[in-house]
């Protein structure tokens, strides 16, 4: 009974507020994607660099690890002091949290390429860049995509907190629900699409990862790779 009325309330809410919901949905998604994109622009080259010059790797990964341990809400609050309210602060926070999985996966992806293969490449007369472009990147692509996948899923969660500092996200609906006396419908209406994006992204990128994995065998998940909590 209760479930039935909840479902009908939910569908009524969705059809009444479809435009508003879609706007939040895309804002939420876009903030996540921007943050991850910037993290990729910084994290992938940095990962390549530390894979190449081994000495830096410890320091850089420790640094990224430290960032990761700060609770997202605290991070948002601290950054808000410097950057003010709004979307940019949220995007920057996403950037910080997405950096570690991208960096770490790029690094371990490149490190896990069989040194005999890179050695053969070099011995055949590839320049360092050609070894990177023709051997290391293609062979670690699936692991790097794995990093992006984890980063995106983390990002969806981080953005959800962004409503507290005035960014428009799907959590707006949830917060409204928590403030209302009978807000169950709102809470579910907001939580459902958040969970949905995260799951869809996860599944879609996993499929791409598998497709790009040069080792092709199915039960062969890359080890030593960051996972979602």
């Amino acid at each position, binding site marked *: 009974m209760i479930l039935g009325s909840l479902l009908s309330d939910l569908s009524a809410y969705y059809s009444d507020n479809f435009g508003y919901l879609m706007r939040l949905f895309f804002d939420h998604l876009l903030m996540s994607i921007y943050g991850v994109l910037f993290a990729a622009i910084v994290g992938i080259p940095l990962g390549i660099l530390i894979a190449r010059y081994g000495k830096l790797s410890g320091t850089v990964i420790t640094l990224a690890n430290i960032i990761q341990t700060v609770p997202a809400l605290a991070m948002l609050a601290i950054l808000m002091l410097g950057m003010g309210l709004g979307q940019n602060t949220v995007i920057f926070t996403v950037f910080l949290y997405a950096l570690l999985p991208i960096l770490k996966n790029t690094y371990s992806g490149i490190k896990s390429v069989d040194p*005999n293969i890179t*050695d*053969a490449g*070099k*011995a055949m*007369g590839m320049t360092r860049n050609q070894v990177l472009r*023709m051997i290391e990147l*293609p*062979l670690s692509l699936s692991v790097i995509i794995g990093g992006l996948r984890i980063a995106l899923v983390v990002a969806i969660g981080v953005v959800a907190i962004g409503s507290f500092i005035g960014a428009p996200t799907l959590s707006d609906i949830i917060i409204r629900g928590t403030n209302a006396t009978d807000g169950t419908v709102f809470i579910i209406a907001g939580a459902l699409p958040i969970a949905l994006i995260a799951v869809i992204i996860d599944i879609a990128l996993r499929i791409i990862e598998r497709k790009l994995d040069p080792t*092709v065998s199915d039960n062969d998940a890359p080890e030593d790779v960051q996972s979602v909590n």
Partner: protein
Amino acid sequence: MLSIKNLTKIYGGKNKAVDDISLDIEQGEFIAFIGTSGSGKTTALRMINRMIEPTSGSIEIDGKDVMQMNPVELRRSIGYVIQQIGLLPHLTIKENIVLVPKLLKWSEERKDKKARELINLVDLPESYLDRYPNELSGGQQQRIGVIRALAAEQDIILMDEPFGALDPITRDTLQDLVKVLQKKLGKTFIFVTHDMDEAIKLADRIAILSNGQLIQFDTPDEILRNPANQFVRDFIGENRLIQDRPNMRTVEDAMIKPISVTADKSLSEVISIMRERRVDTIFVTRNDGTLLGYLDIEDINEGYRKGKDLVDIMHRDLFKIQIHDKLQDSVRTILKRNLRNIPVVDENNILLGLITRSNLVDIVYDSIWGETPAGVDEA
């Protein structure tokens, strides 16, 4: 053409991996570097294409000092084959073969032609060009490894224990293949191994290394006859010294006349020839004597019943040896592979003779206990 002078490599200030090695290698020679583990073979080899920089000494190719060359261009002009094969798993066989031509920016047609030409050279079907490395067996992959090193028409090919990880029979086949290729193409091969059999079988000259030093550099025959010192003697092994001393006979001395038919004969004719000559296998040739394959009596009976032609049922894949091969190499192969009848051909694949397992066994006994079994005669 390749001149190595006082080549030395010191690791960590005192560990001499290669110690003052000098040797000259002629165009078209097959050289083996042999020595125990850690003797500096790999280090010496990799200094030739500057994968390792020498501490001192010089390497000249056709009078040009490699240290003055651009290392990337140098490596593109030298083929390199490693034990771990090192094919790129995400590229097709064809893309793997023409990797260096791609770096050299050859046209698509030229690369295509080269890939097909080379894969035929190692007896693999052209359809393999579109496969990926993990769809090939280890032996097939290493065939690709070998032709990859030849694709840009390199004059010098370096090989570091290329067949070390393969099973004995595959290794044997690939050794034969590489030897034939090397002769046919006239390239200089430098080959690292720690298997004396392999070195004797393949090399024109063998460089024996120990603790980074060059102990002896000579032809296999000369090393077997006159080992430079006790180390070399131990390395060769006393067994082989006995086995190899008495006869340096060629295949020609040992072969007998083969029984063959031309491919246009009918099966009933073949059967009557075989019955008359009392043989259970027979070779099939073209009219000019070129060897095509063989038939054995069971195939013929079956083919006859099913009304098939001779060319449909004959076996085309057969192991053959060259008339000028050394008998000792062939003995080893034949015994190892448990072959019964081995055709002998010349360079044009014309059938000249036949070696059977039983006449080989006679020869082995002769060479160990002398031509006449005197003890038996007197008794």
